[in-house]
């Protein structure tokens, strides 16, 4: 009685809490990805907020979108959040952003910035600040910006040794887009089609490669190199964004200023960099709250812009806030932003980066003509961005599942009718209890994910676009997406690479493992135990750590192998070029292989050492007496005897290698051009870097599973048969 009352009161309490919760004023939730001075600026701005309390949360950039997508529909997300404008397309597709409505002050924002956050007359965010590339001058070396970019070539020979005229990342789309725009190109056309192809793109590539090959621009200039070279005074000009100014600060060793990007003499058109606009956005719920809209308005206000200007050099998106002095970095960036091209906020933009970057790299490496490289880039884009397969009727699948279920049920009923069935079940009841936890664990951790994965492979699309497509994914994969069967990135080519990868690895793992085991099993060897421990160490280190270490060693500029080559050059006066390991398939494959052999041989060595103890000494002696040489003893006696022990280890090793994601992903990362990708890393890319095509990736996974399952199974039965054939029943008679 007492307990019932307690239960009732508890129930009442919870109901009250649930009912009462909306009655309490909820704070406005604000998410951002800021750190350091930007976060301080935000705090200073919020001091001027007079409304409801604000709860701010700093979310790491990597997880930003996922967290928003997970939290907002559940009502746990922010009312107001700060993000880059190019996410808008995705945010809108996921329905986690609302129009700003009355938060917008008309006529105060820079037109390109406002353009970037609007679509069809609806404004989806309030621009805060804008980031784009501009030209930095090292005023110790040059006084004025060049009239055209081509004029930089005149500086060659006039600068101190080891100083480049310009350091400019033309190896990536973000940087090269400024050139591309001068040639009149657009990364995405108005129908969201891939734009980085055609004559403009070809001219852009040629121009970029000329810069590098005439030593106007250093090879492999990326963000870090741009900063380093300019900071250390090794570049007269740099093409970079406000972040370089923040990095240089007031105490920089070089004197610098910022100017607008020059024209190209070739086109007569200015370089127009890509513009990203940092904006305040409202979640659909937030858009309905006046308080949230007011907060958004405050964050985008002129006062806020002034506060922000005190904390950093990023130009505001407002035109009514007086810029700093003429020529100050902030002012120049604001000017540059006016001519910049807002990055497309279409979700399709995601799919542009990778194919375009690869095309650039391929052309600059001289691996393909501009036309081919660009065509391949377009092909890649189309591959990733192909339309979803048509919905298929799930009826046949359901029918099959139904028939199977019926069959099972029938079987069950038949069994239950058998005599003694009940008694037997009762008798073994306790045994079932003992295995129950194992069955549950395996079911939960292995069977259910397997079934879910297999089911996923029959679907395509995400979220509300998710659809059942039958075997369309499989057909698509197995027909190489309609292209040539061995086209780059096709299932068959990747399968061939995977098989080559597995075969090379297994041969080396077993070979080296066996050789070392034989060496270590010699009783005459001194310090055997020490060697054994040392040789097992690679195995004991987590594989991703090893992979990263090897990746570092293969790094072209600063890697240990380059260091070794340079050391040899210094010592012997030779001039061996450092190897660009990831520029060619062969060297990249060797790099992967080396890493995985390092990881894999200790296992084979340990297994072989164990197996070798099972080879009787006198059998080897018998072979010696029979006339076998050392090699024949190994080949004809030792190996056949240890083979049954080794075979499962080799099978296991083959499966591990076939699915060795870590090494491929971390060492070569599929470079060059995804040629060193194996099926698993390819599946990963479809799932996580190519528009989250989980169904497609799952189809890859199912194919991998089926291949491994069938191969290992057929091997197992074959060797079993042989064993049975060779072993007649033990004889009863004794001599």
């Amino acid at each position: 009685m007492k307990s019932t009352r307690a239960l009732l009161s508890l129930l009442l309490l919870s109901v009250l809490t649930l009912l009462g919760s909306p009655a309490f004023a909820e704070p406005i939730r604000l998410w951002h990805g800021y750190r350091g001075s930007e976060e301080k600026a935000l705090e200073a701005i919020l001091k001027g907020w007079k409304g409801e309390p604000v709860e701010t949360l700093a979310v790491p950039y990597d997880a930003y979108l996922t967290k928003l997508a997970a939290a907002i529909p559940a009502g746990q997300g922010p009312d107001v959040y700060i993000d880059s404008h190019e996410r808008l397309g995705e945010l809108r597709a996921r329905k986690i952003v609302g129009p700003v409505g009355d938060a917008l002050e008309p006529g105060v924002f820079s037109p390109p910035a406002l353009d970037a956050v609007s679509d069809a007359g609806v404004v989806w965010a309030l621009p805060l600040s804008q980031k784009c590339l501009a030209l930095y001058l090292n005023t110790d070396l040059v006084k004025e910006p060049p009239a055209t970019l081509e004029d930089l070539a005149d500086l060659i020979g006039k600068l101190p040794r080891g100083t480049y005229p310009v350091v400019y990342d033309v190896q990536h789309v973000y940087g090269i887009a400024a050139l591309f725009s001068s040639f009149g190109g657009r990364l995405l056309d108005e129908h969201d089609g891939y734009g980085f192809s055609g004559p403009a793109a070809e001219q852009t590539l040629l121009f970029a490669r000329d810069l590098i090959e005439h030593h106007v621009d250093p090879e492999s200039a990326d963000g870090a190199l741009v900063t380093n070279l300019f900071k250390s005074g090794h570049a007269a000009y740099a093409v970079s964004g406000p972040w370089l100014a923040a990095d240089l600060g007031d105490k920089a060793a070089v004197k610098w200023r910022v100017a607008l990007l020059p024209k190209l003499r070739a086109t007569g058109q200015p370089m127009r960099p890509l513009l990203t606009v940092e904006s305040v956005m409202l979640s659909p719920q937030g858009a309905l709250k006046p308080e949230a809209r007011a907060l958004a308005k405050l964050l985008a206000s002129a006062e806020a812009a002034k506060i922000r200007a005190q904390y950093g050099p990023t130009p505001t998106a407002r035109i009514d806030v007086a810029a700093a002095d003429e020529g100050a970095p902030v002012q120049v960036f604001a000017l540059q932003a006016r001519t910049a091209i807002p990055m497309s906020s279409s979700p399709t933009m995601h799919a542009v980066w990778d194919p375009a970057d690869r095309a650039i790299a391929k052309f600059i490496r001289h691996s393909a003509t501009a036309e081919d490289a660009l065509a391949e880039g377009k092909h890649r884009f189309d591959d990733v961005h192909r339309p979803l397969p048509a919905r298929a009727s799930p009826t046949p699948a359901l029918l099959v599942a139904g028939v199977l279920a019926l069959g099972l049920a029938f079987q069950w009923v038949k069994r239950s009718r058998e005599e003694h069935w009940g008694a037997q079940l009762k008798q073994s009841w306790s045994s079932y209890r003992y295995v129950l936890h194992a069955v549950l664990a395996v079911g939960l951790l292995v069977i259910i994910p397997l079934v879910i994965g297999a089911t996923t492979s029959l679907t395509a699309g995400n979220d509300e676009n998710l659809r059942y497509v039958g075997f369309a994914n499989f057909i698509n994969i197995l027909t190489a997406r309609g292209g040539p069967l061995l086209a780059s990135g096709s299932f068959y080519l990747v399968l061939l690479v995977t098989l080559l990868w597995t075969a090379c690895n297994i041969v080396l793992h077993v070979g080296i493992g066996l050789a070392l085991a034989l060496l270590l099993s010699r009783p005459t060897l001194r310090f055997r135990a020490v060697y054994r421990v040392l040789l097992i160490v690679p195995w004991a280190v987590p594989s991703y750590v090893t992979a990263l270490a090897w990746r570092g060693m293969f790094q072209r500029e600063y890697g240990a192998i380059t260091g070794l080559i340079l050391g040899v050059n210094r010592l012997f006066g030779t001039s061996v070029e450092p190897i660009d390991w990831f520029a060619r398939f062969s060297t990249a494959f060797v790099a992967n292989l080396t890493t995985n052999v390092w990881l894999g041989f200790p296992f084979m060595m340990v297994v072989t050492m164990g197996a070798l103890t099972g080879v009787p000494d006198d059998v080897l002696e018998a072979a010696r007496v029979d006339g076998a040489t050392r090699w024949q003893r190994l080949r004809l006696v030792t190996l056949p005897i240890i083979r049954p022990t080794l075979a499962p280890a080799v099978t296991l090793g083959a499966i591990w290698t076939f699915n060795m994601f870590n090494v491929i992903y971390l060492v070569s990362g599929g470079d060059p051009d995804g040629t060193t990708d194996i099926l698993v890393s390819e599946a990963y890319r479809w799932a996580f870097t190519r528009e989250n095509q989980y169904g497609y990736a799952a189809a890859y996974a199912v194919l991998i599973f089926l291949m491994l399952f069938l191969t290992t199974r057929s091997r197992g039965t074959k060797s079993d048969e042989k064993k049975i054939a060779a072993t007649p029943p033990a004889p009863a008679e004794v001599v």
Partner: protein
Amino acid sequence: MASVTVAKLLKRFGQTEVLKGVSLAIPEGAFAVLVGPSGCGKSTLLRLLAGLEIADQGTIHFGERDVTRLEPRERDISMVFQSYALYPHLTVRENLAFGLKLRKTPAKDIEKAVLEASEMLGLGPLLDRLPKALSGGQRQRVAMGRAIVRRSSLFLFDEPLSNLDAALRAQVRVDIRKLHDRLGTTSVYVTHDQVEAMTLADVLFVLNKGVVEQSGPPLEVFARPATRFVAGFLGSPAMNFFDAHLESKGAGFQAVAKDGFAMAVDAERFAGELKAGREVTVGVRPHDIHVAEGGAPFQVSIVEALGAESYAHGTIAGAPFVARVEASTPVKKNDRLEVSFAEMHLFDKQTGVSLRAP
């Protein structure tokens, strides 16, 4: 076929000197048995002959050929191992053919040789089995087959019967001897079993502590042991020993045991070695003892009756003593008998060397 000549062979394992200068000669076609207790170096000697170990000093010749430093495969030998050492992954047929295949023998000849060997050893129905599907005796025969199939010039046997049960051992022993008589290949056979040694050997080498104590035809070694060790090692039950000293008696000598019992010594057999006062060890085989009045006093403590004969255990002159008696002779526990010796061996008490004239 080849004779085997071993000269001053020395072999050390670390600090331990296992063979201390062994010399021996085995005539062509002979069946030589190396016998001795555990650790006497007989197996090491065999492994040196096989080439599985290399001597530290000394030489080994097969016929005229110096094989001291040759690899086993260059020596033209076959060996039967104690554990048989069959190739576990090969069938009986492949086990037999293994050595021939390594020598690139034509397949037809291999087939013929294998069939011949398998017929000789009755392996026919077993040819396609793996060793693990064979009984101990069958494995032993396969091991023998593997040795004979190559028709090498020397067969080496390393205690090949020690893993068989007693009944099987007796039978295979006979089979081995038959096989040798048929093939006539020079054979060296290592055993610690004196019955095998006696029954198989054409020539017997008794090893002790790394040296050959005595060699010769088995019956001769049995009848005329050169040392107290050989005398004690061969024969079952073992020879009885007790201490005595020599005294002159008329023209001859007599051995006087501690308890004062005196035995006449046949001076002719021990010519030159006898002198009064010499301390000796008297050796008498249990089979050379007869119950007779006026003999040595023998206190019986226990009797083992085997049916056809009995062994009476007791003491003579304070030393343990075993006598064989006919089953018909009534001997029982605690009897006091008087026994005489049909044959008596004398050894120097210190060196153990036989006093018998060579």
